[in-house]
């Protein structure tokens, strides 16, 4: 068993190449509808991996990723619609704006821990939602911003797919590097034992803030990508219920492995669309599935597999707190 996983792992560069080729070739044999789904999966994966920077690596539980995601989406939308900024710039501005807001929000949030941290992220997310919702003259309020124009060369679903794929690969590669860097290791140490981290000279709060800002950046990037995909943005993107999607994916994919959120995204969107297609009462089914998944698949999908194959993973009590 262990050797099987080890063998897979050793050749992971090969697997990665194969996966990329597969993803590249997808539009050729998928319908437009399905290709569209994969775009959603990729975007959600970026968001969930972004969230994972603070949740899985730094151990900071956030209830409010939606707010930063919406900042990215709305920044891109507003720049295109109100200021006629070229699409490329607008897409890049989204994550930057989200990172800035993330800095402001994070500065207050990292002074707290555990449930209080989580609740403050929720409060800020809802404040962002309220601002977007109420500032009718600027953001269109409840009507959202519709009819966002996207350059012709990526207007078609397939082309936008490649565009998204490229940016997703870039984002995931960046996050991978960050996760494997000394900064990433420091975050993990902070997660494991913030007190001890202080005692070995690490300024815990600054690292947590930095992680929060980076996480916001990628959440905003996902929001911007979605803005271009959906061509519309709505205040609901900032609502905590939407944020729950990102959290569920991050959690169920497996917080402690890098690929976890990516797998989770595939699973979640698939589940979502499959249930929608065969029943009107999809929240019922989805809710039930989520409950079952949490009860029985606590390490997430990625955790589930590596636990099966690895002899040295800790389960149980340490993971519970």
């Amino acid at each position, binding site marked *: 068993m262990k050797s099987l996983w080890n063998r897979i792992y050793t050749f992971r560069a090969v697997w990665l190449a194969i996966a990329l080729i597969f993803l590249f070739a997808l539009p050729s044999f998928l319908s437009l509808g399905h290709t569209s789904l994969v775009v959603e999966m990729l975007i959600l994966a970026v968001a969930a991996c972004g969230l994972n920077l603070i949740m899985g690596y730094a151990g900071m*539980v956030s209830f409010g990723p939606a707010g930063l995601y919406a900042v990215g989406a709305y920044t891109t939308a507003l720049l295109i619609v109100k200021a006629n900024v070229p699409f490329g710039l607008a897409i890049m501005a989204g994550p930057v704006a989200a990172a800035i807001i993330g800095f402001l929000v994070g500065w207050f949030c990292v002074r707290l821990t555990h449930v209080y941290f989580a609740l403050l992220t929720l409060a800020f997310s809802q404040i962002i939602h309220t*601002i977007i919702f109420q500032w009718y003259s600027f953001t269109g309020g409840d009507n959202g911003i519709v009819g966002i124009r996207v350059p012709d060369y990526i207007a078609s679903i397939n082309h936008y797919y490649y565009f998204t794929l490229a940016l997703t690969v870039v984002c995931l590669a960046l996050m991978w590097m960050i996760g494997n860097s000394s900064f990433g290791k420091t975050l993990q140490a902070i997660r494991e034992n913030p007190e001890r981290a202080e005692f070995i000279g690490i300024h815990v709060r600054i690292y947590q803030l930095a992680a929060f800002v980076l996480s916001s950046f990628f959440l905003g990037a996902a929001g911007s990508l979605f803005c271009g995909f959906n061509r519309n943005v709505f205040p609901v993107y900032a609502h905590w219920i939407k944020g729950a999607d990102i959290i569920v994916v991050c*959690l*169920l994919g497996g*917080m402690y492995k890098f690929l976890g959120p990516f797998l989770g995204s595939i699973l979640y969107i698939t589940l979502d669309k499959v249930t929608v297609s065969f029943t009107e009462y999809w929240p*019922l089914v989805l*809710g039930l599935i989520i409950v079952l998944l949490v*009860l029985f698949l606590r390490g997430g999908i990625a955790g589930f597999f590596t636990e099966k194959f690895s002899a040295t993973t800790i389960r149980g009590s340490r993971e519970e707190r």
Partner: protein
Amino acid sequence: MVIENLIRQFLSGLSVGMVIFIIAVGLSLIFGTLKILNLAHGSIYMLGAFLCYWLTSTFSTAPGIFWWALILAPIGAALFGGVIEIVLLRRIYGWHMMYQWILTFGLVLFVGDLCKLIWGVGYHMVSPPWPFKGSVNVLGVFFPSYNLFVMVLGPIIFCGLWALLRYTTLGKIIRSATYNPEMVNALGVNVPLVYTSVFMLGCWLAGLGGSLMAAMSAVTLGMDASIIIECFIIVVIGGLGSTLGAFLGAIIFGLAYTLGIVVFPGVAIGIGFIIMAIILIIRPWGLMGRPE
């Protein structure tokens, strides 16, 4: 005119605040003792509201049906809560907060859609019961007497809970279990039973709030999502786990919201979150909570 408006909003704030208090104190109790932030608390509230609506509309000719519903619907909510606690929540005590959040989120989806399955997507109203059908003149303003009833009921429930926690054996057990469940267990108390009872009490309160709200506001899908956030706000202001805190928090929130709408209509919608953020920033454990 302005004065009248303010008075009306003031009274409105108090009455809405009292209903939300009843719901929020359930959440606070559950968090204080079981250490779970139950996202599905709003769903139980909605369930209570729908049960109340269902009873009053099905048996509309029975005399005093609303009062019957007011008794039965919360019990129904409590029983439903009891089942959830025994079947699901017991397994996740002590788990990482995120898993609890997501599991209860799954319940939100489930229960919300269950209500849709049973009662459809309509917008339902329940009329206030006799003897509170009309309006009375309060401080020069005409105000629904039902809302006054609710305003009075709030403090009564508060006193009841306070007395329960302070003076009864069960209350003392609950308070001890909040601080030290292992010790309480070692003393021979059936801690799981205590947990179930507390959860059912919380759900009873949510169901009661829902039933009361049914005659004040509409019964419809989506009421779960809005109320749960308001509960969080109140519980943060008052302090997680504090009964008095929930009471004060509800009053503060209710008044801030209704008066805020008159003064700063644009901001008022978000006033709750702003207060919540401010409290978390300067005094995270709330008005009545204790710093850890």
